């Protein structure tokens, strides 16, 4: 079985990158990344996890590392993508941290947010404890590739018992200067015990050119901590985006992830978490809206490794034109994870006859006292609801738009932060309706 695609151009770039100068703390992981990438390449569709998503276009590409030219990006251009100007925001342009577009002087006490290179010096322990341990280079070719380029990225560190009400925004932007390039940022998040914070990862393309973002995010949520983590993927129409999030949770912690996906010609979002302390829980939700020839793949993996943990998943997709959506939700319940409470739902609305979805729930349960459910639906606009609206005088187009929006709004309503929720609802409303409020 042929399970790997060699990616010769990417490998020679990785070889050069892993051999270039780097802080001591990153060198071993870079070497591991290079070694794994050389051995494993990128996965073919023969690999079960990549069955519905072919990445051969990425493997055959000749992307070169982005050089971080931020000269063409203005604050005005970024304004539509900034949720609130009063929130701490770290902006990366074309793969490199751009301090002039960032705002960090408004970070409250109890949270530190530093570019990776700086964090290696100032938060050495936080970096070395997490880097490559939650998302090891051996996980898959994309994580290995990311590791061999280690250098750019962010570290978010929330100190114990600190409740941070202001969300932190990490914004990765690519414009025309990044076309033909690739970026491999590494994000580390640590919420110490009983801390509470909200972090947004945004991916924005200000260009219709082709480029490649390959991110890895490693998250630790210590006992009693709550971390809200939003990933808003609005890459350019011709971009490739692969992003892997790997979390590990302690006792009574809560990790909440929301993946909002509208961008890229080909995207893959992995959200993985290990429920590694008794009584903890995770809530993984997402909304994917695709059209044209876009392909968007979301994979989740929840590993119940301790008793009395809960997991909740709700993923929705709205697919138009000839777009292709994929959802693969894995729930593993280890034999000691008794009294696990897991629920997964996945609903897709197809707006055209040529849009396509592959949905695959996957439950592997080795404990006997568990409650795990899953359900997937694929449908079109509900004709009964459509007639109901029309019978109230609302015209056909408006009724269809409202019903489409309503399908999406249902999952957007789960976002706790009101500003983020309102903004994503507004984007969704504008996408499907002519209504502006």
């Amino acid at each position, binding site marked *: 079985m042929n399970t790997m695609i060699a990616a010769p151009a990417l490998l020679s770039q990785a070889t050069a990158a892993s051999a270039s100068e780097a802080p001591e703390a990153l060198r071993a992981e870079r070497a591991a990344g290079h070694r794994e990438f050389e051995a494993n390449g990128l996965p073919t569709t023969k690999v079960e996890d990549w069955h519905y998503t072919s990445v051969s276009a990425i493997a055959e590409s000749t992307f070169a590392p982005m050089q971080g030219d931020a000269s063409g990006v203005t604050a005005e251009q970024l304004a539509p993508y900034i949720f609130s100007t009063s929130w701490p925001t770290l902006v990366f342009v074309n793969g490199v941290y751009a301090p002039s577009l960032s705002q960090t002087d408004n970070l409250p006490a109890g949270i530190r947010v530093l570019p990776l290179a700086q964090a290696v010096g100032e938060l050495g322990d936080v970096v070395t404890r997490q880097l490559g341990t939650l998302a090891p280079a051996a996980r898959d070719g994309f994580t290995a590739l990311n590791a061999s380029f280690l250098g750019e990225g962010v570290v978010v560190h929330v100190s114990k018992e600190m409740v941070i009400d202001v969300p932190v925004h990490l914004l990765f932007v690519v414009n025309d200067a990044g076309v033909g390039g690739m970026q491999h940022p590494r994000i580390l998040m640590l919420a110490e015990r009983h801390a509470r914070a909200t972090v947004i990862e945004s991916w924005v393309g200000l260009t219709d050119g082709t480029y490649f973002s390959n991110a890895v995010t490693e998250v630790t949520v210590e006992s009693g901590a709550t971390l809200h983590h939003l990933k808003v993927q609005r890459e350019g129409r011709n971009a490739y985006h692969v992003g892997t999030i790997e979390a590990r949770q302690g006792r009574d912690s809560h990790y909440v992830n929301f993946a909002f996906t509208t961008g890229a010609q080909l995207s893959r979002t992995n959200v993985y978490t290990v429920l590694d302390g008794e009584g903890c829980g995770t809530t993984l939700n997402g909304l994917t809206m695709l059209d044209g020839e876009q392909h968007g793949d979301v994979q989740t993996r929840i590993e119940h490794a301790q008793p009395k943990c809960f997991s909740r998943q709700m993923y929705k997709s709205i697919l138009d034109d000839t777009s292709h959506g994929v959802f693969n939700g894995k729930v593993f319940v280890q034999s000691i994870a008794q009294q696990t409470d897991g629920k997964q739902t996945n609903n897709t609305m197809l707006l055209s006859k040529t849009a396509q979805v592959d949905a695959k729930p996957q439950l592997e349960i080795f404990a006997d006292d568990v409650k795990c459910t899953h359900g997937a639906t694929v449908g079109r606009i509900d*004709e*009964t*609801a459509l*007639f*109901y*609206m*029309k*019978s*109230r*005088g*609302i*015209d*056909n187009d*408006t*009724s269809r738009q*409202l*019903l489409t*929006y*309503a*399908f*999406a*709004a*249902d999952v957007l*309503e789960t976002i706790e932060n009101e500003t983020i929720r309102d903004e994503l609802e507004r984007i969704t409303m504008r996408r499907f309706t002519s209504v502006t*409020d």
Partner: protein
Amino acid sequence: MLEIRDLHAAVDGTPILKGISLTVNAGEVHAVMGPNGSGKSTLAQVLAGHPAYEITGGEILYHGENLAEMDAEVRAQQGVFLAFQYPVEIPGVSNAYFLRAAYNAKRKAKGLDEVDPMEFLDLVEEQLKLVDMDPAMLHRSVNAGFSGGEKKRNEILQMAVLTPTLAILDETDSGLDIDALRIVANGVNALKRPDNAAIVVTHYQRLLNYIVPDYVHVLAGGRIVKSGGKELALELEARGYDWLLEAVA
């Protein structure tokens, strides 16, 4: 206002209505009664313009115009309103938004300016009292998670906001306890004016204790087999439908 002449209708090729003629004038309340499967609900759905029902013969004139040629939304904009037997849940669309969209669609059809959300909330406040509904219900999704009684009250609230010329109530009494029934009936009665009319479709007589009809029609086998005054409903209550069906057969 409404003139139905020898109406035939089918669903999936199966004939349901087999020649109904009925005239409704402004200011009148007509009750349409009949056993299950008689075609009562079909008549209501056909009048509202449900696309699953095909009109295979006869005609429906509404203010002299051919109603059958109008799309459901146009009928609604022209003042036809169907209170559903099973109101539809629409998670994700707030009741307030839905009501305002419907209200503005009707205004737009009349060439009037749309009202903004604040104006609309003022306007809907009175109607909420009419159906004894908590204003908080406006901010919930349309019918989602509502009890049976709340759904029916929500139908009457929509009716109150849209002030239809011809209201069709399809088994609005089904599944209601006596208190909810009273609230719903009071709402309907309060909306009665000399220039509008109502068709009340019901299986049981009890709703007609509260909404007193001017005429009662009994439907069986897709035809009106008997028409009379309000006393006919009482007779049906006492004797059931069988004697009528036997007389027809």
